[in-house]
């Protein structure tokens, strides 16, 4: 797993939608931490903007969005 990418995703989540405690692990559940649909919309836009990927509705699903590593995996699949 690309640690660098996970770190970038973490920064985006932390800065644009949901402040994460230092103890938050890349496999911890973001929804459990309080991610809700309002934040999710902002997160998707931020990921597209910062990481130059296009996320489509088919990419959604809790398996992709519930953890930082899940998001990173999705982003790396989508990267050109």
């Amino acid at each position, binding site marked *: 797993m690309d640690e660098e990418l996970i770190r970038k995703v973490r920064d985006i989540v932390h800065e644009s939608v949901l402040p994460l405690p230092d103890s938050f692990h890349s496999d911890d559940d973001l929804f*459990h931490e309080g991610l809700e649909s309002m*934040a999710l919309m902002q997160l998707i836009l931020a990921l597209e903007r910062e990481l130059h990927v296009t996320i489509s509705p088919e990419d959604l699903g809790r398996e992709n969005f519930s953890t930082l590593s899940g998001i990173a995996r999705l982003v790396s699949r989508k990267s050109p």
Partner: protein
Amino acid sequence: MSRTLDVAVIGGGVSGVAAALAASGSSEARGVGLFEASSSLGGMGVRAQVNTICGLYLGDEQPRLANGGLCISFEKALRAGQKSDGLAKMGRVWVLKHEPAALGALLRSGLARRSREIDLYLNHQVKAVERCADGFRIQYSNDAGQLHTLDARALVDCTADAHLAPFLGVGRERHQADRLQRPAIICGIRGMKSGALTDRFLLTLAVDIAKSVRAGLLSPGLLGATFRQSPQPGLAFVSLDLDPLESWEPSDPVSVHKTLKEGESLIKELFGFLRDRYDAFAYLEEPLLPEVLGVRESFQWRGQYRLSGGDLMSNTSFSDEIAKASWPIELREKATGPSFEYFQDPCSGASIPVRSLRSAYFPSVFMAGRCLSATHRALGSVRVMGTGLATGQAAGAAAALVARDGPTAWESADGLAEQVRYDLKSLESMPPFPSS
């Protein structure tokens, strides 16, 4: 000659109803009056359609009620009366989803069972309060606009904005905050395909809305619309935090009305989008608009103690504890969504002292719900309905004691809190809410 009540409770939201019930349940109550300016009980939980009760449970793996007393029969009756169980986990914490009309009906039935002890004044507005020999003289208008007066030995202010404070010549406070919390409009959705709101579909909607906003097809104000199924089949709710104008003032009716109207037009736009875009929403009915805006800010009384965010975060234990807060400090100030700060030990809840429910100026005036004495940050936690129910019952029980024995008999906060805890415990054996 005015009639004299023991306790007058002003404001018929969940905290006001709990205050009236607890005041009437204590021994030798000689009369309790509950004044509500609108035609319905339940406050924000009914009139703004806030459809989840937060702060009822402690954040365990298994939900456990944070408070006893009336909260026990209230929770049981609300859950039993709904078509499907409203218990749900949101993030790390448990909530109880409810259908607003069912909440209103439950509160009314609780009061009806105590109709001999509690006079309910719906559509009655308190116009003035002054001190008198027996305590306080309340001037109020009925729905025909006629003025009447009543005396009460003790008062409980559950108006969310500390309405009684200026009448009594004392200031009300709103504590400094860099930004005010955003208000919300919450609307009912009817006419969608049943079972449409799956987790997956909700995620799809979130992306579609985000992308349509970016493409300029939807107003940016719709970013952040949050959908939730109601325990009532065929009903869901959409909640939208709003960005009011610069001049936003939550206590100004004109500002609130303007913001509500802006919210309504955003919701209508959203409904058009949903109808056009999804089969599940093709036959959507017109939105079920709320009577009032969901306002998260309020004015507070100056209490004998001002509860702080730090008290909650560090689970500070008070010897005069009368209720437990269990909801994290939730602040909705930014367009990127809410922030949550969880208590150090979320499983044991945080202590609320009786001093934060008692006026610093008048020992026979108590307050509950959103106008108790707390900092802006602490209100991010204690403003929720579950905690309002708990502070309401405590304020009502305390007011009844002070009305019966006089304020000097209950000068000590520890002594008062101990008796309030005892009285609330004994309320558990005669629950006002129906058990089946």
